[in-house]
């Protein structure tokens, strides 16, 4: 008979946060799912407003509440965040991605192989509450005696996990299903813990009998259907003929029941720790020939990429360490802006630095390791072309173009060629020096173009025609500069002004173009009592030397007596 421990961390996310911030343990704390918070269109969290204005089109619900929140304030998972705030306005809210939790759970699983090599992740979404339950299964068949007996083993596990700061519910039984059921739905003491209940071998049936049928890991529809028929506890199902049940519901119920009772086998999929991809090559004699170094790197890269291919991963960040004979290390790091598994591209990136490498007496060892990898599924692009040729000019036939467009739609990878260029530029010039201008629809000139080092390959850079219609200078000053000694002529237009060390005499002007400030942004908020609206009046002016400037009068900063003039750009 197998013996399996089910561990359940009812407050996995909040416990993890409290590990980092021990002080938060005593205050109400909830997490929300980051996926709920960030939705495509409006997706950003306005941190300055303290999560008051999470911009989403959807309601945000509490994913997990810590003990203080739950027992002290009655905030439970599934509650609307606004309702939770209504109960406790100073509630601390953290938004957290699911995958981060899963990664943390994976680490914990790795750590758990101190008790048994067979550990399995148990991540299940609670269909009713929409909450994700994090847990582990430990197959301790034949391991218990190494730690004394089952009781001491269980005590050891619980003690060490609690020392890490986790709230744990645990149970040990003959089957995965039974252990899970008791861990999640078994009796708990007032602290919410069940102290690791151990179901003796062969007593599964009795242990399960009084548990709710929810403990069988059924779908909400099945649970509802069973409840409607009056089945509340697992024992209610014991005496119902299996085929009668299966005919009225589905095989799942019978399966889960039989699996829990040990009448049917359940597959145990142990988790295998992942390793960092790393390739090392040692040389008997140090190599100092640049071309042989490159050949070696090429060979190592081929090996590394093969490893990655098996893991369905692509490189984002790669490090090559070259160990010099005299005891020094050269390190080369390259970054890619999308997951890559293409050797020729990576070699190109590496070559920038390889070409300038200080070889001196040569290297006797080289290590190529990935620092950051991302998922990259193997893709077949088109039947008659190879991977990597997207974006190349040789796509001529229209069917292929259509195929390419579809591929782009599916994967979101566009302009791979452009991406490669950017990668090469960045690796050569530095990661922060290459940026991408984007049009942002705003009347304020300084906000019309946003520069971002993040490349959004999906939306290609397209200039709205509205932008062309405006008669603004193409290049603006980094920030508007105040012009002094303005002498106002007729029509309230300056006649002369002083800027950057000289006085300019205005010969011609055109305008004004009146642009209102963006009243909804915090920096432009005016007290509601003042009825005036604030704006800038832009003029195009020409001085006596034929230089053309773009100046404006700012009514927002001006007081009643003085007017503020600024120079914002230069034409030509």
């Amino acid at each position: 008979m197998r013996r399996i421990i089910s561990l359940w961390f009812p407050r996995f996310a909040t416990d993890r946060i409290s590990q980092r911030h021990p002080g938060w343990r005593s205050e109400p704390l909830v997490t929300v799912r980051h996926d709920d918070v960030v939705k495509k269109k409006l997706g950003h969290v306005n941190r300055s407003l303290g999560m008051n204005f999470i911009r989403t089109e959807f309601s945000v619900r509490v994913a997990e509440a810590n003990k203080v929140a739950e027992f002290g304030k009655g905030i439970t998972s599934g509650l609307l965040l606004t309702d939770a705030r209504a109960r406790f306005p100073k509630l601390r809210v953290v938004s957290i991605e699911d995958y981060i939790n899963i990664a943390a759970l994976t680490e914990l699983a790795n750590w758990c192989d101190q008790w048994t090599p067979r550990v399995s992740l148990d991540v299940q979404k609670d269909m009713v509450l929409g909450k994700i339950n994090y847990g582990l299964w430990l197959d301790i068949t034949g391991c218990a005696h190494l730690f004394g007996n089952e009781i001491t083993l269980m005590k050891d596990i619980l003690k060490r996990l609690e020392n890490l700061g986790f709230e744990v519910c645990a149970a040990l039984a003959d089957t995965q299903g039974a252990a899970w059921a008791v861990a999640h739905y078994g009796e708990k003491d007032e602290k919410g813990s069940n102290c690791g209940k151990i179901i003796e071998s062969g007593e599964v049936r009795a242990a399960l009998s009084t548990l709710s049928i929810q403990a069988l890991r059924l779908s909400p529809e099945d649970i509802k259907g069973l409840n409607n028929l009056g089945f509340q506890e697992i024992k209610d199902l014991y005496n119902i003929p299996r085929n009668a049940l299966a005919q009225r519901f589905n095989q799942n119920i019978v399966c889960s029941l039989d699996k829990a009772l040990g009448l049917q086998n359940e597959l145990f999929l142990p988790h295998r720790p992942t390793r960092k991809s790393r390739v090392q090559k040692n040389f008997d004699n140090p190599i100092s020939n640049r071309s042989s170094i490159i050949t070696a790197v090429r060979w190592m890269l081929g090996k590394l990429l093969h490893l990655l291919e098996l893991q369905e991963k692509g490189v984002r960040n790669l490090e090559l360490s070259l160990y010099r004979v005299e005891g020094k290390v050269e390190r080369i790091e390259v970054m890619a802006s999308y997951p890559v598994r293409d050797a020729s591209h990576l070699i190109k990136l590496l070559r920038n630095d390889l070409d300038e490498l200080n070889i001196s007496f040569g290297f006797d060892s080289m290590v190529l390791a990935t620092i950051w990898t991302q998922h990259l599924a193997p893709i077949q692009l088109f039947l008659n072309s190879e991977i990597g040729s997207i974006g190349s000019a040789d796509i001529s036939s229209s069917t292929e173009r259509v195929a390419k467009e579809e591929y782009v739609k599916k994967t979101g990878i566009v302009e791979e060629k452009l991406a490669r260029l950017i990668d090469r530029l960045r690796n050569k010039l530095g990661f922060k020096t290459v940026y991408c201008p984007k049009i942002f629809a705003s009347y304020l000139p300084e906000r019309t173009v946003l520069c971002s080092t993040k490349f959004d390959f999906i939306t290609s850079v397209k200039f709205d025609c509205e932008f062309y219609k405006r008669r603004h200078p193409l290049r603006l000053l980094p920030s508007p500069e105040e012009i002094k000694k303005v002498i106002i002529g007729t029509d309230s237009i300056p006649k002369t002004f002083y800027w950057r060390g000289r006085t300019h005499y205005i010969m011609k002007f055109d305008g004004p173009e009146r642009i209102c400030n963006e009243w909804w942004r915090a920096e432009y908020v005016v007290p509601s009592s003042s009825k005036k609206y604030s704006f800038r009046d832009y003029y195009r002016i020409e001085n006596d030397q034929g230089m053309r400037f773009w100046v404006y009068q700012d009514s927002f900063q001006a007081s009643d007596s003085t007017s503020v003039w600024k120079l914002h750009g230069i034409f030509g």
Partner: protein
Amino acid sequence: MSTYIELQVISNYSFLRGASHPYELIDQASSLGYSAIALTDRNTLAGIVKAHIAAREKNIRLIPGVRLDLSNNLKFPNEHSGPSFLSFPTDQFAYNRLSKLLTVGKRRAPKGKCWITLEDLLEHARGQIIIALPPEPHEEKKFSKMLQAFSSSARAACASCYLAAQYLYRGDDESRLTRLESIAQICGTPLVATNDVHAHDPSRRALQDVLTCIREVCVIDHAGWRLHANAERYLKSNAEMSRLFRRHLHAVIRTWKIAQACEFNLDQIIYQYPTELKDGECSAQIKLEKLAWQGAALRWQKGVPSKVESQINYELELIDKLNYASYFLTVFDIVSFARERGILCQGRGSAANSVVCYCLNITAVDPNRIDLLFERFVSAARDEPPDIDVDFEHERREEVIQYIYEKYGREHAGITGSVVSYRGRSAVREVGKVFGLSRDVIQALANLEWRRGVGGNIKSEIQEIGLDPTDHRLALVLSLTGQLIGFPRHLSQHVGGFVITKGSLSEIVPIMNASMKHRTNIEWDKNDLDALGILKIDILGLGILSCIRRGIELLAREYGKKITLQEVPAEDPEVYNMLCKADTVGVFQIESRAQMSMLPRLKPRNFYDLVIEVAIVRPGPIQGDMVHPYLKRRNGFDPIIFPSLELEKVLGKTLGIPLFQEQAMKVAIVAAGFTPEDADRLRRAMATFRRTGLVHKLRDKMVNGMIARGYDQVFANRCFSQIEGFSDYGFPESHAASFALLVYTSAWLKCHHPTVFAAAILNSQPMGFYGPAQIISDARKHGVEVRSVDVNASTWDCSLEIAEGSHGLRALRLGFRQIKGFPEFEAARIVAARGEITYSTIADLWRRTGLKKALLERLARADAFCSMGLSRRRAAWDIRDLNNDSLPLFIANNKSSRNQNIASSSKWSSDILLPHMNLAEEVVEDYDMLKLSLRCHPLQLLRANLFERNIKSSKQLSGETPDSIVSVAGLVLVRQRPATAKGVVFITLEDETGNINLIVWGNVFERYRHVAIGARLIICRGRLQREGLVTHVIANQLEDHSKYLDGLKHLGKKDQKIELTTFNMSSRNFH
């Protein structure tokens, strides 16, 4: 005197574009010294009358106009694809054409859109002044060609053509004006200065941007170039416009010339009522007189009393004088149609309770019984149309409406429009979306009490729901919400006001399609029509009429008693006995809690008492503090005295206290020296505009007038506040009388035929104040046997069955309509397939009806298989066994295999013991599926627990002494916060023995807000108060025990985890 006249103005009736009310624009224009101003909303005349009224008050001239956004073609119509023009009619005929043009555009487009082409415009251009709006700079070439062609054809069609130019601070205005000037010269369309006014003041800028975002469905941060670059589109002064157009001054002066040329104003609209004559009939008056005397002879078969005769003569004379005979004939015709079809109806309203109407069978209220004076409503002095509302059964009103459309044609008849405005809730929702708040935050904001307005109070409420009111974004949301409230959102149709004209209706006002199929309505609402003196007839739906018709039908079918609305025995003392006991659940109008507590105090003994009962529990009399004085006088505690002799005439019938709307008006006329117009303006001013300034002035005028004539100031103030109340919900005597008749009829039905009455109400749901559960528990209290829904006995409607051991008694069988989410046609299928042979098993039912399994499960959960001997769970178990794959037809085809199939499954099911369902579980299921339970009340199940806590039932309360402190518990039936009660909340609880009335004072309510608003089961501790027969509990402490209800299922099972089953219990909140 200003030379500049703004000609391009849109108000907020150009929905989501204009940012000012018409009256704000007019006020601003008046303070800037304009002598006239135009209103040119986009493809609509909806706001024009409102502006007209405001302009009349401010003594400036409104130039009616419209901005026409044309579509380029009708294949792919789009209001923004073509050029735009302003169009101003110069005379009445031009106005008719303009209105017709809009009608053409609107009738061919879906609701809210208007598709007009350039050809349409030219076709209707005669007599218009047309101003073309300038294009975007890059389209100028194309535009100039178009304009050249257009202006020559327009001149050919006798329209003059201009080109508008604006100075909007776009940076290139000067050069643009020059270019436009040259286009104007080429095309022969002189340049006119306008400012494309969107708001009366630049401070509306934020609101303007928010409206744009609502229209474009975007967040303010991303709205970008969809907004205006600046807020220069406001009403500017003459000096400012002259400064901007200093190089084109002729364009400014030209506006004044155009304004001079547009002489037309809305008062010139000529409107004719259809004559209602058939061939061979010479005049409407003669026809009416003939019909009236014929009717009188029928009504008084023993001969018309002389008093009535003289009244008829008098009324006919007055009708003749005011030329309203045709109007009465129309109403008569509609009512006759309804009678023919067997649709119950009853007239009501200012002219409806005249003897003539009684003779014409429009109303059943015998004017002899209540002595109404016709003249009060159709007064010769006020040249105001008579107003007759006719109530029809709400389910069959559509037949009447279609009849009217058919009779007069869509060219001559249309339903009055109504303007749907932003209220607090909808406003904060939209503004919240614009600011990108998440849905739950918006929901939380929308749930606040917006009715009280955005005051200081809302801030604390916002803190309470966990938001920070000082956050600048939230502060913006709140202030903009406050500005948006009251803005018109879209046009809808009035519930049933019909406008009928002799000529073409579309020449007076544009007609548009309604969102409902086969409906068309006009752009003006009822206030607009009143202001222009256009007649309308209200064709309304009334639930109680459907209910009474059902009752009458059931009486005829089940008991063989044939009776009509008129034949109900009058003044039956048993009925009044019942009313005096406040036993009125389900009775029309007087079933609310306030009415019920009034009944034992008022003790109605005759019909007129009912009229008063209906009228007295209304905001008007309550706000005017007229209720208690009246009761005291009636019960003889206070002497009946009149403030003056002249008022004795007015207030004689109501013991010196004004209770009816027209009495209050009359007081203003008689005692304060108001002219009838003044009095009416007072009522209107408060009903429509609520502009504090005007109301204040009238208040002073009235109170001072009364004091000057020697009245007590307290009395004067009371009279005024009553008028204030009436402006919202007042009842004129005639309305009250018509309603009182229905009150009496429904009370009679309840008194003598409770079974029929209960069935009729249940079949007319949703209707009235109480839900099915209360109707049924009340019926059972009156000895009605109620039987549960059953597939072998029920029909869609509730029906009557012969009761056991019957002496002609009937039992009430609930219908399938009580089952939540069960469709009517499926119920019909069950009944049709049933015929005479009952269903023996579920498989039998399934085979014969082919119902889906989900519906069968619904029936099982509603416990509708009792007659088969199947409990809920057994039935559900059997349903799950029905084989999904084989359709009933195939099974019937292959009989042998079917028998096998059924036999095999029943073999399993018979020996399986399903868990037994206890009473609590059954009750929870009952409420879940039927919203009622015939088994027992949920509170009964909890009573043992409640008893431990010393909680009294409503029955026990009668044994308690007043002022003692008691605890009570019950399901929340009704929550009310009457506007008249100053923050007091009334909550009605229900337990197994009856109802408990809670009074929650404002401070207690604030403390227990969440409980008072959200809880389904409340435990309340408070002081007992008794007033006559009525017992209240003044709440001190409220507790939410809704979780008891959720836990009901597990009652008796120890330590069960409470599951997420919610006990469904609906209450009626804050109506």
